[in-house]
């Protein structure tokens, strides 16, 4: 077995073991919208019905749902009031899921027509297969499928980094270690939720893009990238940022192919960013958001651009959501609402800011000098890194324009909406970090990276999660 596959086997084993740890630590249902996704899959797989509003109003939830919520103290752990019957406080209001979880938890209800169901259709056969298993066992088996997708994402991350930086495993290790040791990634992407599938599909898309730019264009690579793009968009609106990313990829490719002047390329890229930003705001003004695109709904609400987007209350919302997005990326654990950063929050902010400056240094040193003859990176590397940089801009636009458009915190944004861009983010985060290491300490780059992430993760589950969830 080659060294490459030995390393990969080690990382895969580590992902599986860590995934199992996170699956085991988090009680059933205590993940973002997990009961809602599970119920939609169960309706399709076990009841043989499409999860419409009418079906939710007539089909009882699994008879053990309430019992398992009680056994694992889910309402208490999540901090929400259980939907109790006034006469019999230990029983739910009735046996319909629509009156059980969504009204009290603010969790979504997965309704056909309003919500993309690709992931649920994919999981339905498994649900049918395990129909006779106890409810909690069914949930854990579905979580294992999520772990499988997360493992595939890590594998894609490894090959993605190797494609961009062939012959240097430091980048592949740096990227995959970040994926494996980011606590929120392991938590969200080992739960039953369409997030895990869309993260896998978008990672496949980025892998395809990297192959196209670094190894040359072929029909199979275009096909792989296009299929991943289409499926990802149909799976969850959080993948929509890859549409403008694809335009940027095309423009960057054409610019290199036909020797466009840098000014023309810059102008076109700026136009795409502006169009994406304004288009996203309009989209969230006239529809319920990206779901309208993923489910091909018609636009119905009137456009309202007369709002005051720069008033004190607007700024308060923006600052709150930026802070919330940051916190939920490094901790908070979705529905469990567990803040792991607490006292160390300022330190993590500062570390991230410093790494961010490192990232800017990297861009200035390696990406911007595109036309120069003496370049440390090849033109292919520069091109794909430029495309990845824009993908990060687009995902931030897709996360924050709903807040600007609606002037409310209704859309969060929880960090899991950012996770489809984990591959480019991890790579840039590592590259930014690497810029901060002085040349004479270069041999410590990976050990410090691993030590920091390992420490953070151990702190997260050892000192925060387990004490919080298990007393």
């Amino acid at each position, binding site marked *: 077995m080659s060294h490459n596959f030995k390393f990969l086997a080690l990382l895969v084993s580590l992902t599986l073991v860590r995934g199992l740890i996170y699956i085991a630590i988090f009680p059933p249902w205590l993940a973002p919208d997990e009961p809602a996704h599970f119920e939609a899959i169960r309706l399709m797989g076990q009841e043989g019905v499409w999860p419409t509003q009418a079906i939710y109003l007539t089909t009882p939830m699994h008879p053990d749902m309430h019992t398992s919520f009680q056994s694992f103290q889910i309402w208490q752990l999540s901090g929400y009031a259980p939907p109790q019957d006034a006469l019999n*406080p230990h029983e739910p209001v009735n046996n319909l899921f629509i009156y059980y979880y969504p009204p009290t938890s603010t969790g979504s209800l997965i309704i056909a027509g309003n919500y993309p169901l690709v992931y649920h259709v994919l999981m339905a056969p498994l649900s049918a297969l395990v129909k006779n298993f106890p409810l*909690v066992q069914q949930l854990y088996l579905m979580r294992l499928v999520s772990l499988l997708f997360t493992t595939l994402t890590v594998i894609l991350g490894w090959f993605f980094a190797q494609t961009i930086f062939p012959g240097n495993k430091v980048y592949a290790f740096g990227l995959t270690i970040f994926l494996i040791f980011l606590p929120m990634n392991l938590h969200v992407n080992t739960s039953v939720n369409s997030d895990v599938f869309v993260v896998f599909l978008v990672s496949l898309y980025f892998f395809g893009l990297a192959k196209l730019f670094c190894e040359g264009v072929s029909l199979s690579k275009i096909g792989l990238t296009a299929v991943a793009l289409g499926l990802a968009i149909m799976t969850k609106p959080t993948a929509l940022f890859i549409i403008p990313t694809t335009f940027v990829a095309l423009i960057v490719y054409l610019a290199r192919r036909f020797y466009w002047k840098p000014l023309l390329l810059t102008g076109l890229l700026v136009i795409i960013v502006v169009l994406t930003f304004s288009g996203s705001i309009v989209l969230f003004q006239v529809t319920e958001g990206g779901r309208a695109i993923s489910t091909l709904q018609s636009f119905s609400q009137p456009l309202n651009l007369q709002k005051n987007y720069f008033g004190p209350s607007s700024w308060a919302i923006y600052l709150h959501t930026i802070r919330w997005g940051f916190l939920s990326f490094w901790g908070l654990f979705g529905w469990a609402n567990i803040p792991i950063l607490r006292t160390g929050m300022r330190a993590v902010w500062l570390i991230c*800011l410093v790494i961010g400056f490192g990232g800017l240094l990297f861009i200035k040193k390696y990406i911007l000098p595109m036309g120069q003859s003496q370049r440390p990176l090849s033109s292919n590397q520069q091109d794909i890194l430029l495309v990845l940089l824009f993908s990060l801009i687009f995902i931030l636009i897709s996360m924050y324009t709903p807040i600007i458009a609606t002037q409310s915190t209704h859309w969060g944004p929880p960090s899991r909406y950012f996770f489809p861009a984990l591959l480019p983010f991890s790579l840039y985060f590592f590259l930014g970090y690497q810029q901060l290491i002085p040349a004479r300490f270069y041999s410590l780059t990976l050990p410090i990276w691993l030590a920091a992430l390992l420490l953070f993760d151990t702190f997260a589950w050892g000192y925060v999660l387990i004490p919080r969830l298990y007393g």
Partner: protein
Amino acid sequence: MRKKHWSIIILLLIIASGSVYQLLWGRISNFDTVYYSPLYSTDIYFLAGDAQITQEFEAEYPGLSRIELYFENQANNNSNEVVFHLKQQCDAAEDIETLTVKQVSIVSKQAFPLTFSPLDDSAGRRYCIVVESKSGEVNSSLGVYASGVDTYPRGSATYKSNTIALPNSSAVALTNQIWLPIVQKTQPVVQHPFDIGFKLYYNGKTGATLQTLLRQLATYKPGPLGQPMFYIFLLLLYGGLIAILWVVILKVQKN
């Protein structure tokens, strides 16, 4: 010279970003607040005179050493005291622990810790915390946060409202205190089951705590996840893989 120039720029950028950060996110709210326990922010029970609130609970681990409760305290400079009794049962005559604190030391909405010597044999035992305010005023403005419904399956709370005449009961309530008399008036005796917001902390012996933790981790879970030994196996496997990863990383970086 060029290197120096860059170092200064980076240093300035770090300081600038730190300042921006302080400006934007300088006020870090305490996460141990009722905001992060919305379940316990619906009701407030007013303590004055001989009013008293109790909460039964079961300690899960050995070494029970701290209980956190949430209060609404709008009296900033009175000399009132709040008394906490930890008992084996709510109606027991003897206290296991008795703690008296100044009301002014309680911060609204934030977890207020009651610390005492660890109770080594607390695992699996039932306790009761009784809270009363030694206040001679109706407007002592100390409320205990609670849920409106039964949320804690291993015990429940009771509330006994004030029955004695208080000297300044006719005092005009300040605007920000209006809710407290209302709560008192509308809920003299609470009929429905409810719980106050509380958190338990332990400082027991490591071996016994780990054994209890393993049992807790495995409870109600299916298959291997329901076996305490599985968690030890996972941890050992994880440790082994981390050790191998360290060796590999050091080699890769060296090459």
